[in-house]
C-alpha cells in the first residue's frame, strides 16, 4: 500500500530530515511512527500526503509513483487520504457540521449524502449532539475527536495522524487510540506519528522508530 525505497528528504535550507528510508506498509495495516522530536516523523507523513516532495528514492502509494503525480493532480490524490493534526485545525468560524462536512463538500457530494455521512461520522466519535456547536465550545479532547470524524467522513483508504494525542491527557489519548483501532478494523491503512513510545508499546502494533532521519531497529 505504502512503499518507501531508499527515500531521502533534504529541506531547501539543507536540513536532512530523512535519509535512506526503506519501508513497506500493507493494506489494512496499522503502524506507529515513533522517535524524538525532530527525528523526521512529520516529514515522513508529509511525503505520503505530498505536502512535501521527497528529494531522492521512490515512494509508491496505492500503486502510484508519487514522483509522477503532477502538482495539478495532487488535490485529487489527497482525497484518498484522511489527515489528523496535533492541534486538530478545526475552523473556528464554522459549526461542527460544516467542519466535518468539508472533505465531502470538496469531493462534490450531494447535500443529502453529506448530511447522512456527517451524522454517521459524528455518531461514531460520540459527538453527534454537538453538531450545531462551534469548536470554541468544545474541549480539546472533543475537538480532537471532531478532527477524527472529519478525517474519516469521506472514507479514505489511508489515514495519517501526526501526534493526534499530543495535547490530550492519558485517558483521552487511550480513547483516541481505540478510535484508530476501530477504524483500522474495517480495512483502512493507518499511520500514526507519536513520540509517546511508552503508550504506543501497549497497543501491540508495529512500531517504526526514527532517529535523526533514519530508521532504527528496536
Amino acid at each position, binding site marked *: 500500500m505504502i512503499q518507501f525505497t531508499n527515500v531521502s528528504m533534504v529541506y531547501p535550507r539543507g536540513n536532512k530530515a530523512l535519509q535512506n528510508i526503506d519501508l513497506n506498509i500493507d493494506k489494512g495495516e496499522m503502524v506507529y511512527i515513533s522517535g524524538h522530536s525532530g527525528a523526521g516523523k512529520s516529514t515522513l507523513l*508529509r511525503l505520503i*500526503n505530498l*505536502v*512535501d516532495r521527497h528529494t531522492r528514492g521512490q515512494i509508491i502509494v496505492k500503486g502510484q509513483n508519487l514522483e509522477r503525480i503532477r502538482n495539478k493532480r495532487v*488535490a*485529487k*490524490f*489527497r*482525497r484518498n*487520504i484522511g*489527515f489528523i493534526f496535533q492541534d486538530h*485545525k478545526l*475552523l473556528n468560524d464554522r459549526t461542527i457540521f460544516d467542519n466535518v462536512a*468539508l*472533505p465531502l463538500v*470538496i*469531493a462534490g457530494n450531494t447535500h443529502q449524502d453529506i448530511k447522512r455521512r456527517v451524522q454517521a461520522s459524528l455518531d461514531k466519535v460520540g459527538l453527534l449532539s454537538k453538531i450545531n456547536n462551534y469548536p470554541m465550545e468544545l474541549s480539546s479532547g472533543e475537538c480532537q475527536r471532531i478532527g477524527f470524524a*472529519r478525517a474519516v467522513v*469521506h472514507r479514505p483508504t489511508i489515514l495519517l495522524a501526526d501526534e493526534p494525542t499530543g495535547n490530550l491527557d492519558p485517558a483521552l489519548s487511550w480513547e483516541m487510540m481505540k478510535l484508530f483501532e476501530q477504524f483500522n478494523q474495517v480495512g483502512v491503512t493507518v499511520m500514526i506519528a507519536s513520540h509517546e513510545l511508552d503508550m504506543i508499546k501497549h497497543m501491540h502494533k508495529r512500531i517504526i522508530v526514527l532517529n535523526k532521519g533514519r530508521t532504527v531497529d528496536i
Partner: protein
Amino acid sequence: MVIGIALAFPTGFIVFLDNIKVVSSNLDNTIELNLFLKMDVNEIKAEALADKLSNHEDIKKIILIRRDEALSEYKKLSGFDNVLDSLDENPFPNLILIKPKFKNNENSQIADLVEELKIMPEIENIQYDNKWINRLTKIIEIIKLVVLILSALLVASVLLIIGNTIRLSIYNHRDEIEITKLFGGSDSFIQRPFLYSGFWYGIFGGLIAWFLVLISISILGDPVKKLSYLYDANFKLVGLGLTDTLTLLAVGIFLGILGSWIAVKRHLRSIEPG
C-alpha cells in the same frame, strides 16, 4: 464603497464629456452668420438670394431682414426718428441671418460655408464669431485626453483596491485554504468564493458609482440650467442611459473578477499546508 467612488469618477467624467458634446452640438443654435448685402442689392434680389440659400445643404435656417424693417426696428429702439427721417436714403442694407448646420463639432464646415458665401456678388460683408468655437473644440480635445488618462489611472486603482481586498481576504482565510488543500480541494474549488466576492465587489462598486453620478447630476442640474439660459443655449444635463448603466455594471463586474483573479493567482499559491 471605495471601489464605488473610484468607479464614480471615470463614469462622472464620461457623463461630463457626454454633456460637453451636447453643449457643443447645441451651439449651432447660437451661431449665426450675418450676411450684409451690398447697398445696390434691392429687396427682390435679396429675396431671391435668400430663397437660393435656404436650399443650401449646410444651412439650417435663414431669416431675411429687409432694409425697411431694419430701419423701423432701429427707429423704435433708438428713438432717433427725426435724425433718420432727415436722411434721404435708408442707410441700412438688406441683411440675411443664417444658422448653419453644425455636425460633430466640425469647425471647418463653417469656414467652408463662409468662404463660399464671401465670393457671392451680392454680399458685402459677413460677420460671425468663430474664435471661441475654435477654442472650445480645442478645450474639449484636451479634456477628453485628461479624462482618458484619469480613467485609466482610476481603473488601475480599482483593480488594485479589489486585488488588495481579496488578498486580505485570502490571508484571513489561510487556515481554511490550508485545510481545504489538505483534504484535496482543487485550486479552482478554492478560488471560486474569492472570484465570487470579486464579482460582488464589482457590482456593488458599479451601483454605488451609478448612484453617486446620479446624485451629482441632480445637484448640478439646476445651476447648469441657469447657466445655459445665460448663454441662450437651452440644454439639460444628460444623465446615464440604460446602456451606460449596463456598461458601468459590466465594467465593474469585469474589474471585480479580474482584480480578484489576479490576487488569487498571486497569493493562493503561497498558502500551502505544512
